[in-house]
């Protein structure tokens, strides 16, 4: 029976299995000194295959696999699609960059696939053990990916910082897990949530949840747990940054969703206030720090901190199991930031790393097209209408006002205005300043096409958002 069960589970988990297998093939291909071209194509092939298979495998109803340790539902599938999409864009764009930086190798791509898989495991996990392993799988792959850039001082620094701090966060999460296990006597997330339903609230339960969510806050880089993010953004190779900025956020959002779904703790005054305050503080700190940044990645990192604050607000607002607001925010932010970092990746070349915002001066003279793409992306991050980011912020603000948090809303809104300044600074550098850096790479028709995918969808979704809204609302409410 167990074997049948396992076989059935394997069949349902086939896209991930394929990815597991393919990642090892990629590794082998790298080991046997295939040219990096093949490695890249195999990676691409494996992701596309997995994506196609997972389309075919789309689950309308939730099903539990591997003895209830894995859950597969339309929620997990939705987020996985987003991850696949993002990942595809990332690897397509980063190809030239990696070759230029001599990073393209079998182990790089396979580690990237492992990181992706780790995130998928987080997304699908229904058990603390699997969850922990997923977190570790993705984190360990990411530490290594950063450290792979051996020649760079800042990369190794970023790696060690990320490593140590992330491990602390894992430790904190685990500590919380241990208490949860102790209270409920179960490792199943569902059971843990149910336990809270059955019993009256216990303080230890609350505190272990807080421990877990501090860990989550760390992974989201919510202030004051955000310090690693700018350093990692700056230090790691751009494709890795691109990954770190987007896919783990989605994965950890799903984690938060799992932990809070059907769980009355979200209505707990202390817990929800904590989420609210962390979110607000993060918006405040992120925007404030981003103002002074001169390096583009650090600026994006701090903007990421601010956006993580918004995600926390979204989670805070997920009363009555309505996670759709936060989910929409996460998805919209992730694809936007991927677009931004991809564009920066694209512009960096062999001789030149796009580090300072100043380097973007006069970009529109050199390539108006890229400048417009970047502008759309940044406006979306800022939440200006005509972009998907507007709806993301809109939903949050709307829900906050529905909750009667007027003053908090006004503060958030004012912070958004401050935040707008540093996005505008990039835009004005690109469009208003004269002179342009001739080292910036602007060629590559196919890459330009890939790059324009996200900005186009940002605007298209703005114009016709209803399908997405309906879908997200349906699966996450």
């Amino acid at each position, binding site marked *: 029976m167990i074997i049948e069960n396992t076989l059935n589970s394997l069949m349902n988990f086939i896209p991930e299995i394929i990815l597991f297998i393919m990642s090892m093939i990629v590794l082998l291909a790298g080991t046997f000194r295939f040219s990096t071209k093949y490695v890249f194509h195999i990676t691409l092939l494996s992701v596309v295959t997995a994506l196609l298979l997972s389309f075919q495998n789309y689950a309308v109803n939730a099903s539990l696999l591997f003895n209830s340790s894995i859950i597969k539902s339309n929620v997990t599938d939705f987020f996985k699609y987003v991850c696949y999409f993002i990942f595809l864009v990332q690897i397509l764009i980063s190809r030239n960059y990696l070759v230029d930086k001599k990073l393209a190798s079998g182990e790089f791509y396979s580690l990237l696939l492992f990181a992706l898989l780790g995130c998928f495991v987080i997304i699908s996990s229904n058990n*603390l*053990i699997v969850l*922990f*392993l997923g977190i*570790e799988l993705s984190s*360990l792959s990411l*530490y*290594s990916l950063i*450290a792979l850039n*051996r*020649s*760079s*001082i*800042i990369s*190794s*620094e*970023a*790696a*060690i*910082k990320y*490593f*140590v701090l992330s*491990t*602390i966060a894992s*430790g904190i999460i*685990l*500590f919380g*897990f*241990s*208490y949860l*296990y*102790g209270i409920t*006597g*179960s*490792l199943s997330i569902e059971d843990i949530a149910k336990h809270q339903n059955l019993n009256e609230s216990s303080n230890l339960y609350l505190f272990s949840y807080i421990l877990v969510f501090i860990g989550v806050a760390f992974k989201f880089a919510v202030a004051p747990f955000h310090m690693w993010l*700018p*350093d990692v953004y*700056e*230090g790691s190779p751009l494709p890795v940054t691109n990954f770190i900025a987007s896919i783990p956020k989605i994965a950890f959002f799903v984690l938060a969703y799992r932990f809070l779904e059907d769980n009355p703790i979200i209505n707990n005054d202390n817990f929800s206030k904590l989420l609210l305050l962390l979110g607000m503080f993060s918006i405040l700190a992120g925007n404030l720090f981003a103002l*002074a*940044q001169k390096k583009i990645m*650090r600026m994006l990192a701090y903007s990421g901190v601010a956006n993580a604050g918004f995600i926390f607000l979204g989670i805070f607002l997920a009363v009555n199991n309505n996670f759709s607001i936060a989910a929409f925010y996460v998805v919209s932010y992730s694809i936007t930031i991927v677009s931004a970092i991809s564009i920066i990746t694209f512009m960096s070349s062999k001789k030149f790393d796009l580090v300072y915002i100043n380097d973007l001066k006069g970009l529109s003279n050199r390539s108006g097209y890229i400048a417009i793409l970047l502008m759309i992306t940044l406006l979306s991050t800022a939440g200006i209408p005509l972009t998907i980011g507007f709806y993301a912020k809109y939903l949050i603000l709307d829900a906050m006002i529905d909750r009667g948090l007027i003053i908090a809303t006004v503060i958030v809104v004012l912070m958004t205005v401050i935040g707008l300044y540093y996005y505008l600074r990039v835009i004005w550098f690109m469009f208003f300043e004269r002179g342009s850096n001739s080292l910036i790479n602007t060629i590559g028709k196919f890459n330009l096409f890939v790059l324009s995918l996200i900005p186009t969808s940002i605007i298209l979704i703005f114009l016709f958002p209803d399908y997405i809204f309906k879908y997200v609302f349906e699966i996450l409410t």
Partner: protein
Amino acid sequence: MITMTHYLVFSALLFCISIAGIFINRKNILLLLMSIELMLLSVNTNFIVFSHFSNDISGQVFVFFILAVAAAESAIGLAIIVSLYRIRNSIEINLINKLKG
């Protein structure tokens, strides 16, 4: 009589010491790694305590996995430290602040 609370307080203390170890230490990055091991040890102890007192083996299974992962983690950590040492010729923590602001 040694109760569950005794064990839990002990592991909490261990947890606090290990975390303090991470930020009190200013010189040697290897000590950081050791502190992390210590932290995981405290977590493991917690799990085992709960597993023991609730007579449920799954906590111990978790500990098994944590041990495995911790080993992998320290391997990667040490690898990073070695590579850091190669490029900077030092692993002093208070020299690692090229990324800041």
